[in-house]
């Protein structure tokens, strides 16, 4: 049991911090521009694919640096020539635009890279077990993921609380209408924030690609979850997004690890049900099976009972 707990916690942390790399960008973009960017996870996917292609020629480490930069530039271009244009037609148009963009990026990825799963590998340098606990190995690459995500988290925190740009962004998050009155070049800041946000998503893709497999559906798999995190944490709250990222990461990790099912519950209660009903799958459910549903269940519950999210102040 303890080994399951330790590994589930470690894996949950890795997932959670990875999710936060996406959620942080999404949150800042939402707070400043009021856009919930549906295509955010698509930039994560682009990060993985660019890094894969680069790694074929120049190795993993070049990809780690260059791919996020390319993604960031792409993101900035999308903001400058797409979002800004749609902005005048209102929020629905913006949401629909990013929705369409996510769709297009998925198709474009299939066009350029094909529909198959890419053999994007962890670098040889990190291809060893970091430590062995209770006979189970924890790979060095996962440790590396943890380190990168933690580094990004700390860096982001420093930038936001210490630097001038960070302060402007913070002001923009809490008082979106005020900042334009401060005389800062708001459109430029928007483009930059969008670029950095998508670059972070790209970086998450680069480091997650080898572990979570690089395939055209990877944006869809993670996209909705990241949305869930941002909403559960409270729209526009970075600490909330952090909390929710860890929560979802750990929740899923524990749910998969815990081999508990309805059958155990029924046995515990000493109940027996006849198995002839169309819904009798209900009685054979186990936690691992419903793990993918949990975030969405949580999302709906949070929205019903606390629409501001865990730590949000603004109700949208």
């Amino acid at each position, binding site marked *: 049991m303890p080994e399951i707990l330790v590994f589930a916690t470690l894996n949950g942390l890795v997932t959670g911090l990875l999710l936060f790399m996406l959620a942080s960008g999404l949150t800042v973009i939402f707070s400043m521009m009021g856009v919930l960017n549906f295509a955010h996870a698509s930039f994560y996917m682009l990060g993985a694919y660019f890094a894969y292609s680069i790694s074929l020629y120049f190795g993993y480490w070049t990809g780690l640096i260059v791919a996020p930069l390319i993604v960031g530039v792409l993101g900035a271009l999308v903001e400058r020539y797409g979002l800004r244009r749609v902005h005048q037609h209102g929020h629905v148009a913006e949401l*629909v*635009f990013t929705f*369409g963009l996510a*769709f297009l990026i*998925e198709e474009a990825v299939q*066009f350029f890279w094909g529909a198959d799963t890419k053999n994007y590998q962890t670098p040889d340098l990190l291809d060893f077990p970091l430590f062995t606990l209770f006979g189970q190995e924890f790979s060095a690459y996962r440790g590396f993921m943890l380190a990168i995500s933690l580094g990004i988290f700390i860096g982001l925190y420093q930038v936001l609380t210490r630097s001038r740009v960070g302060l402007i962004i913070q002001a923009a998050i809490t008082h979106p209408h005020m900042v334009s009155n401060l005389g800062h070049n708001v459109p430029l800041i928007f483009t930059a924030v969008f670029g950095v946000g998508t670059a972070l998503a790209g970086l998450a893709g680069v480091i997650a690609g080898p572990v979570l497999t690089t395939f055209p559906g990877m944006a869809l798999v993670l996209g909705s979850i990241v949305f869930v995190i941002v909403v559960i944490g409270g729209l526009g709250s970075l600490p909330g997004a952090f909390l929710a990222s860890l929560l979802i990461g750990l929740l899923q990790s524990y749910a998969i690890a815990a081999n508990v099912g309805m059958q155990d519950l029924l046995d515990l209660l000493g109940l027996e049900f006849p198995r002839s009903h169309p819904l009798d799958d*209900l009685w054979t459910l186990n936690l691992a099976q419903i793990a993918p549903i949990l975030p969405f*269940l949580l999302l*709906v519950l949070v929205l019903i009972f606390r629409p501001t999210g865990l730590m949000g102040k603004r109700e949208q």
Partner: protein
Amino acid sequence: MNGVTAIRALAAKSGVWAVYLAVLLLLPQLFDSILAISIFNQMAIAIVFALSYNMLLGQGGMLSFGHAVYFGLGGFLAVHALLMMENEAVYFSIAFIPLIGGLTGLLAGVFVGSFSTRKAGTVFAMISLGIGELVAASSLIFTGFFGGEAGVSGDRTFGPPLFGMDFFSDVDVYYLAAFWVFLSTLFMYLFTQTPAGRMANAVRDNPERAEFIGYSARWVRFISFCASGMFAGVAGGLFALNYEFLTDENLNLVTSGRVLLMAYIGGLGFFIGPIIGAIVLTLMNFLLSNYTELWLLYLGIMFLLTVLFLPRGFAGFIMMHRLAWLRGRLHTLALPYLLTGLPALLFILCVICLLELSHTAEPELHFLGLTLAQDSVLVWTGLLLFATLGWYLTKKSAPGLRRAWEAANEPEADAAQEQFS
């Protein structure tokens, strides 16, 4: 005077409906191939589904990312009804199958709407997404009802024949679908003309104000939401009849996204918009998917271009010309449109050729009677050259089109000049 105009308006309106009905009934006479009938059936389903979505987003201002839930649940219940008929548990005409779908959609709408319509905007959109993902994921878990990845299939031919139709062929299904499409379209249109429908527009525009003229914004939204769920369910029932087969894809984000696409491309602000969208996208789906593997890519590009440049969709684009037409100046736009449109077409065709050439596994590409060799440098440079030329000419002629457009829509100045001359 008022009476006369009212009667005239009524006659014009019922004329439109008579034409609609006639078109629905005559289509299978004009195009009677199996393929055409199958496309018409797809269109029928898409029209009802897209109209039901527009009820939500276009009329009621609720952006949903989970509308497939009501479509899919309606469809699944309908297939189960077919299965029950096959097992001789029940016996009724399958003409009522869409009704079962509709009732399912309505019930699901009542349940979800009871908590999701409190707010519009982002909260509503997110709840709809959550519910959508929840139901889609559950459908893979509860395999007894949803059939898991394989789905559930039924057989529509076990019911009693209706007017001599035994529903073995798709044509029979078409006439049944046409009946339901006409009925659904009529009811959805009439709904927009009722107090509940008009207040849905009002709440979309300004929920706060609606509360101060005596209406609960939440209750107004709830009514639209339920009605929309019901018609989505009818569409799902039609789907079940046509394909006799449903899978988890019918209630997941892909289907929800597709209906958003249809309604948006067609034009949200107009009742006819989603109908146009449904027809165009079904046709494109069929035409393109037969000729190219890249059709989803083209669809995505077209969608983004529509959002960027035609925010009110195809219907909005057509309606944009109403003023020029009323002022009798529509013809002045023809030449400028040609001058910009032809180079733009050249550009688009060249880009398509380039995309296809770089994607195809064949050594040659046959396109518009041309044979393009994939390994010919000449072909590639030629295409690039023509694409650039098309782009340049489009850019260059665009200001002219804009000027012509403004001139065609300008009201007073011309009228005043005419008076003086």
